[in-house]
């Protein structure tokens, strides 16, 4: 269980309050108007944005001040999820060892992750020579080897076409189901919510609301959410 307790995130004159819990093995969609602070919320969970007040608790441990790499989560950003100068193998390998000293076992693990995302024969390629979908798969392979209990997606597939995006979301869904990780994804699209999410975190007017079951919320949205959904 990951808990944001009485958290306040401030950036310049923007502020976001959050008091919510994320449970393991569940899939959350974060929705809300643009500029409401969806990415900021994920950034705060991941340790890129400091909390002005409040605490972040994971299984009873206070990880408010932990470095991003030391948290139980892995995040895919909107872009730049791969180092363009490193091979796919190296990019994925960094998820296992940040000093890149890969043992034979490590390499085998990277290779099996790559074949899980159908990139087995792309290990030595650089990201620049892959298609957009393949780049996303490579990043997902790294998420797989990192094997953290929480996977955060900040719209990493936004640049892909609709069909490819759905394919990626399905793949993500399969992967987190296999690994048992919780998924927290930012999205604009109510269809994504219906496709994946168990719960919805609605972010608007400076508040990140506590998660509510997706189906009930979307079928019967409160006024603010109805206004956003249009």
């Amino acid at each position: 269980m990951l808990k944001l307790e009485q958290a306040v995130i401030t950036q310049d004159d923007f502020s976001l309050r959050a008091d919510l819990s994320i449970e393991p093995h569940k899939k959350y969609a974060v929705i809300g108007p643009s500029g409401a602070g969806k990415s900021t919320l994920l950034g705060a969970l991941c340790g890129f944005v400091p909390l002005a007040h409040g605490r972040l608790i994971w299984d009873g441990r206070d990880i408010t001040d932990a470095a991003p790499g030391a948290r139980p989560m892995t995040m895919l950003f909107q872009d730049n999820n791969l180092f363009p100068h490193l091979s796919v193998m190296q990019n994925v390998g960094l998820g296992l060892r940040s000093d890149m000293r890969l043992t034979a076992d490590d390499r085998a693990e990277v290779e099996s992750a790559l074949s899980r995302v159908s990139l087995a024969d792309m290990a030595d390629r650089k990201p620049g020579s892959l298609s957009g979908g393949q780049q996303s798969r490579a990043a997902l392979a790294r998420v797989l080897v990192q094997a953290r209990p929480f996977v955060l997606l900040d719209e990493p597939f936004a640049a892909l076409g609709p069909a490819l995006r759905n394919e990626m979301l399905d793949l993500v869904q399969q992967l987190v189901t296999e690994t048992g990780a919780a998924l927290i994804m930012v999205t604009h699209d109510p269809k994504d919510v219906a496709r994946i999410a168990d719960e919805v975190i609605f972010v608007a007017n400076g508040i990140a609301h506590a998660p509510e079951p997706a189906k009930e919320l979307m079928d019967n949205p409160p006024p603010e959410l109805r206004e956003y959904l249009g």
Partner: protein
Amino acid sequence: MALRAFAISTKTGIGAAALVVGLILAAVCAVLTRAEFGSGLGPADWSAIRFTVFQAAISAVLSSLLAIPIARALARRQFPGRGLLVTLLGAPFILPVIVAVLGLLTVFGRAGWLNMALSALNLPTLSIYGLHGVVLAHVFFNLPLATRLMLQAWQTIPAERFRLAAQLDLTPRAVFQSIEWPMLRQIVPGTAALIFVICLTSFAVALTLGGGPRATTIELAIYQAFRFDFDLSRAAILSLVQLALAGSAALLALWIIPSVSMGGGQDRPRQRWDARGGVQRIIDILAIGIGALFLLLPLGAIVTRGLAGILLTPASVWQAAGTSVGVAMVSIAVLLVLALPMAGWIATAKRGSVEAVGLFGVAASPLMIGTGWFILINPFADPVALALPVTALVNALMALPFALRILVPPLRDTVQVYGRLSQALSLTGWPFWRWVALPRLRPQIGFAMGLTGALSMGDLGVIALFADQDRTTLPLQMYRLMGSYQMEAAAGAALILLALSLGIFWIFDKAGRMNAEA
């Protein structure tokens, strides 16, 4: 609550910066102990100060003004060889001063090509020595720099503005007033300030073309006080004057100096619709033609004369060449050790003002640092024995501000784009350098190494203070040959020096860019 640590530790960077400041401050303190202020500044010293400021001001104004028509022509004309010419504009920056001086002497000297032509026409001949020689050489070095800076500024003007101007059928005068003048007003003062600062600490040009009571720079006066009179007190006082003068000028200039982009893209002209025929065309042809001749004639002179003299070069030249290559390599190594951590610190710092630390190297003149360290070393060891290490170190310090200007912007980008990803993967400290920063910056690192190597290779400064017959670099050896009127051998040495400087630059720059990923 503090922001979480960046991917780069700032400790080593601050340490390297402290070392740089410490090395320079130690020299200043050493100089201070020897300065006997009772003696004050003599009339000769005042005239050196006046001359230094005067020649730097004229050189700066002339270079900046002459660069305008050349940059304007290059920005709007397309012709075969344009790319090569723009590339050659970068050459004087890594051209050893002493080599350029020999080239200028061949063209403009007493028995040079220009005077031969003049006397053939029964016109009075010109002398290159004194103020106009010093200014001529400074313009030779800085006109191309100014042209590049302005060309770069011209090319940042959005093409849409020129398209609009074409649509409105504006006259060349109106285009100049509405589009080009506002840009020039921003870029010209900074360019002139940069050249002014560079010329303030000019030594080798003044040594070879100046001299005498009426054409001595402070830097040259330090050398003379040190070398001929061994008057440490006077050298010390002059060093302090130089530090105050160049330091305050550099600090003032810091705020207006444009960023020196060494990147590509300048060889591609924008499509322009206002490049008309007629008078405009003639003006452009003249600007490019005269500019190219002024740059190419001395370069050509070095090559033709050097080829003739290369067989006459004594063994001492080859020996000095070997020494120089060694000094250059040590310089490059020292530069990397200092510049990379400092760049890391500056790139992650919130305030850009820490970049000023790098400028410290410009403000402190090489001869002042040399004098200071001579005084420091003297009680413990023979400074002459340490001539080469001190030269390598000072050369690295001189190259440091340029290296920082080259390394910091791409490193800042890298931290911005890949910083979060690196942190999420716990890539910090050495792994971050090893797997992210160094591979991303390889082209710039290669460029900075090449630049440092070439600058060090061609430097005639500190080594002139310390050296004896046994320990000498190629530029100094060449200067000695010129001093003893062995001009053919000197020309041969010049060609070797030119080839080595350009070669070192080319090899490192090429190695950096080879297989570099976008």
